[in-house]
């Protein structure tokens, strides 16, 4: 459900239009923190480690 913003101009408390989903994402530092850790952890670290772990051992 989209949030709404309240005008902070004194004397003006009419509800304005809903906040777009993209702006909700950009305004949520903890969601961004989660994304910023999850994406490189999966695509760089875990994927890379799995490739190394699956290398056959030389005999």
């Amino acid at each position, binding site marked *: 459900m989209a949030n709404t913003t309240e005008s902070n101009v004194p004397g003006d408390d009419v509800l304005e239009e809903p906040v777009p989903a993209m702006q909700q994402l950009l305004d949520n530092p903890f969601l961004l923190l989660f994304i910023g850790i999850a994406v490189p952890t999966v*695509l760089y670290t875990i994927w890379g480690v799995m490739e*190394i772990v699956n290398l056959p051992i030389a005999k």
Partner: protein
Amino acid sequence: MAVNRNFRTCPTTGLVFHEPAEKLMRWNAVVAVVALLIGGVLAIGVLLTRWQAVHLLQADLFYQFLTAHGLNMLVFWIIFFEMAILYFASSTLLRCRLATPGMAWVGFWLMVVGALLNNYAVLRGDSSVMFTSYAPMGAHPTFYAGLILFAVGALIACFVFFGTLVIAKAERTYHGSVPLVTFGAITAAIIAVFTIATGAIILIPTLLWSLGLIEHIDSLMYRTIWWGFGHSSQQINVAAHVSVWYAGAAVVFGAKPMSEKVSRTAFLLYIFFLQLASAHHLLADPGLTSNWKIFNTSYAMYLAVLASMVHGLTVPGSIEVAQRQKGFNNGLFEWLRKAPWGNAPFVAVFISIVGFGFLGGISGVMMGTEQLNLIIHNTLYVPGHFHATVVIGTTLAFMGLTYFLIPVLFRRKVAFGNMATWQAYIFGISMSGFSVFMMGAGTLGAPRRHWDISFAGNPFGYEFPATAWLMIALMGIFGVGALVGGAMYLAITVYSVFLGEKIQTPDFATVSAKRGMAPAPQPVAVGATGHGAGVGAWGMVAPGTFVLALVFLTSFVLYYFVNWKYLSTVWPLR
């Protein structure tokens, strides 16, 4: 426990400083400059050894100097300064009290102890493993313990930053979205958390290995995870110095971002993709597949590069719009000709943008291409590239910010008249020449990690083209210029902060503020009188920047093509 709610308002800028945050900013900035001083002194030895005509230090001493130079410059100087930026971007820009100042001091002292311990390990002489410290080359346990303590301290500082964002929102000290500079700092802090966590994953077992508690560290595993720390730590810098660019444009010109949405989306691309560029250090390593390498570099990294190009376009674009609105609206470049070329923060930020884009950015994309990487892997090209990104891009931007902060934060005048402006020119131009000639020598095969580039006395010598030696000599000359510029910065900063003329502020008083201290928001004029309306030419508000962007893209395409052509000559496929 009572919460300190004492704030100071800067009479010059109107910026609001929370007392504990201000103190932390000062201490972090001062320690950062001390690290820069140590790294700078060590740079003399490194440069005069790399400059083959001088070749000053013996091998052992060279590697020792190089290790300490790399760590003090790439880690301690920059991250201490970035912590000051995080506190500034949260507490000051959001006009909010700092979360848990006590924890912030714990973090700060952990960072100081960690930096001292790491320097002690290198000073002992048995930890000359360079910045990369590749296992199975081992260092003294205090080397790793120092880095871990430093990382834990920095992590605490990052969470103090996030806590401050929570307080600002809860106490409604700002309205709507956080300012763009704060958003850039959020990006830097997010990358920092990933970086530090990755560092812990690899440095803790390596510490145990150095203590003899673990038998073996796999070298490829070490390199893969370590670069998640080593390269991402430099991506914190990118997000931080781009934030400084936006701040510089706002401070010097009163410029507003051309599009907040576009700039924030570009920062979002950093959050998604910037850390993945770490893979370009492993492009020549066996064991990792081309799928992993190419996805992380040639796909994901390009999206981060796109973000950098957006910032590189929007910051000068916003400056152009601000200048045109002031009346410098003739032709394509009157706004640039009549820019304040005697203003040190502007000069530093401008050279930082141009150097980072043209030298660091284009070379970074070339290096990140798996095939082209073969030409320059482990050559002098690599330090040439990162001196363009980290030194011209980040350090020079931070130098410019320092000249703004000395009066604002330390309440002192910047000493020695115009020397700060000259410093920005000398350091920026010299470091640009240094990076270009280093990359040139690297392109011709001059190695990066060997103490003696000439391989003198080796049974299988190698004759480099004479041009490579010319490049190295020019690198040495420009390097000396950069050292002079660095020394000027240190002299100006240290003298100004400790001995400079105090800025008197009559009737100054620190006041205790109550919750919700932000003033009522003022409606911003938009629409018909929106940003950039009525200026520009040919239907564009920033045509000069558009032309500069085309010059950049042409250079980019040409350089990329030249390197593919060069690859076909050094590695002919018949």
